[in-house]
């Protein structure tokens, strides 16, 4: 009696070859990106109207108004990515904002103080209504981390009133850390 069945062996070989061939069929060489790097880092600059960076406005901001600006409280904070090489060369902090005339009439000159990564920057007083820029150099020591918290405070603000129940500081436009 035959031990090996030729037909069985032939079929088995055929089936194995078919499965290997199917599985090993060359595919189009499409490189599949296994990671998505589109949101890898925070931004070093934040605009009031940019929804992509809104999460970096961590404290003291009200909702966006007219798709372009936001009111702040008396104290507010932003987290910014530190620019490349700023840990050795330092950077410049630039805050753009506005003081409405109605507010200026009630409060007079407003002094703005800021700190980056806990290191205080020189304060500056703004003695006129309108748009302003607070721009100060930031020492390298304050920028040793990859991200830093920028804390801003005003010496005075509009308290909650009958017309607007919010505490109002200034109208925030943008903030940025720029390499020097």
């Amino acid at each position, binding site marked *: 009696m035959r031990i090996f069945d030729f037909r069985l062996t032939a079929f088995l070989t055929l089936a194995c070859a078919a*499965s290997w061939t199917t599985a*090993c069929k060359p595919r189009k060489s499409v490189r599949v990106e296994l*990671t*998505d*790097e589109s*949101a890898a*880092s925070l931004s070093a600059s934040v605009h009031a109207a940019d929804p992509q960076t809104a999460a970096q406005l961590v404290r003291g901001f009200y909702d966006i108004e007219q798709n372009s600006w936001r009111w702040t409280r008396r104290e507010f904070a932003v987290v910014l990515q530190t620019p490349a090489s700023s840990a050795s060369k330092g950077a410049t902090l630039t805050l753009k904002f506005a003081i409405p005339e109605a507010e200026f009439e009630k409060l007079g000159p407003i002094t703005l103080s800021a700190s980056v990564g806990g290191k205080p920057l020189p304060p500056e007083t703004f003695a006129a209504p309108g748009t302003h820029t607070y721009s100060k150099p930031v020492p390298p020591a304050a920028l040793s981390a990859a991200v*830093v918290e920028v804390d801003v405070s005003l010496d005075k603000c509009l308290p909650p009133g009958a017309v607007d129940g919010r505490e109002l500081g200034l109208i925030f436009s943008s903030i940025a850390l720029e390499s020097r």
Partner: protein
Amino acid sequence: MSRLGRFLGWAAPLLLCLLIYGRCLRFWFWADDFAWLSLSQSIKSWSSLWTALFQPMAQGTIRPVSERLFFLLPSRCFGLSALPFRLCILTTQLASLAVWSAVIFRMTRSRFAAILGPSLWVCGAGLAIPLSWISAYNQVLLGLTLPAALWFWLVYCETGGRRALACVWGFFLLGFGVLETNVVFPAIAITYAILFAPHRRRQTLPFFLVSALYTAVHFWAAPRTSEGPYLLTFDGGMIKTLWTYWAFALGETRFHGFPGEWRGVAGSAAVVVFSAWLLGLSLWTWFRGRREPIFFLAWFVILLLPVLPLQHHISEYYLAGPTAGLAAGAGTLTVWMWGRSRLAGAACLALCLLVCIRTLAVTHAQTHWYGRHTLAARKLVLGSVQAAALHPGKLILLTGLEDENFWGVVAERAFRLYGIPARLAPQDIPPTVLKAPPGEVSEFLLPEGPARFALLHGLAVVYDASGDRLRNVTGPTSMAALLSWRDFPPSRIEAGSSLYDGYFGPGWYPAEGHVRWMQQRGVLYLSVPLHARGRLLLEFTGNPVLLGPEPAGLQIQINGQPLGYGEIPSPARPTRWTFPLPALAPQTVVEVALQVSRAGPAPRDSRTLGLALAIAEIF
């Protein structure tokens, strides 16, 4: 029947197998697979090859063919690609089906039984996990070697040919390298001999002797465990375990919530009706002189005998081989009933199909589970490989993992295979990981303090694994780290990492390699985790200078109070100690002071060195 018809008959079970399990070719590695793959990296010499092939591993098992060689050869030839493994598994299963068809045909002389039996096996509940999970290949391969040995045994019983007997021995001995269950082959051989060839009963004696010898050697080389899921318990509970496997074979399962699931009464009724039909009809045919169905049922029971004492480790993949017998029995009975009465045959066939509908739903759920999780593992591991290539030298922190991803990939040290420094970020930790005892999982997590340091200093990147591919979320996570993560001492310190610099007090040198050298006395700070078991773990290596006429000792203080003193048995070798701790409030910081009895310069190092600390942990 025409040649084409016969060919298609032989092909039917194989095509059915490809149809149901062809998609497994796309699956990837999972859980134990990663440990077996790392075996290849452990081979540095002939002696390490011997160790890799024959040293008891994984619950004391020694399976050189189905696990050691199976993982070593493809990983050496093709690298860490799953496809060669998958092809090997599917090819083996196709071969098993062909051999099993041949066995049934030889025993029953019925071509339809030889088609129906393997087809029912493929549609049954036993093959889903072995064909979906690479580490369960031992079950698939034994599903080939045992039927092959049986087939040659049938030939030998009929013809007495020496070549056939040699082949029986060949497959029988090969089976010992595949799975321990192979020891039952003598029982199968004698059962066949008793039922069909009484004059061959004595020829089974050498098989029994070899099985007994193998069992003795196995228990000598790999002693039985005295606790845990692999504890062998020989008592009446084995009957209950057998019933559980019987019910699994008929479609009961621990998987729940899948489409086509038969719950409650419907499921139980199906098991009872099919059991009554199969057992009743087998006995009825036996009394009418047809013994094949009883033999096939005996095959089911005999193959399960070795796993019945594992009452705390009931697993569906043990059914891969046994269900071949069940399916063959059902197929044979159906064909015979068809021969007696078309109506009775049709009723039997309907019953088989009904069970298949149920088991196929279970099979689909199980393969779907493995497909989903192995492909998630692929995304996680290969995504991390790409992340490591994009950010060389940086630690990869992972977030958004499911529980299964953690236990099946991270805790199985899959990243070590690729040399990737990946850990879980201290946010969105899977629930079961949070509940796990601290000592079991802490090596896979980076605590808030070191993670905060790593992110703020650009030493790590964070990837979210919850989507279709890994998403770099370093920026948002860095913000969370800056604003809300506490710079608090962790419960585990890896002394060789600079991320932990802030938790060392006086008496330490900077981190170097995987350790940090201490002077004669050093202080470090650890926190007490929630659910701690009250143990302090220290892993260290002593300075060879500690070798001397008197034994060197290590004094440990906790918060200024002596905790213990131990003699360092072999200063130049890694030492792992655990000390019981006094009652400490959770989430508090503990000052740990270590002091060796003597310190001094080491060869080629003029510093005063006491010991090199690797790990300190409260768990």
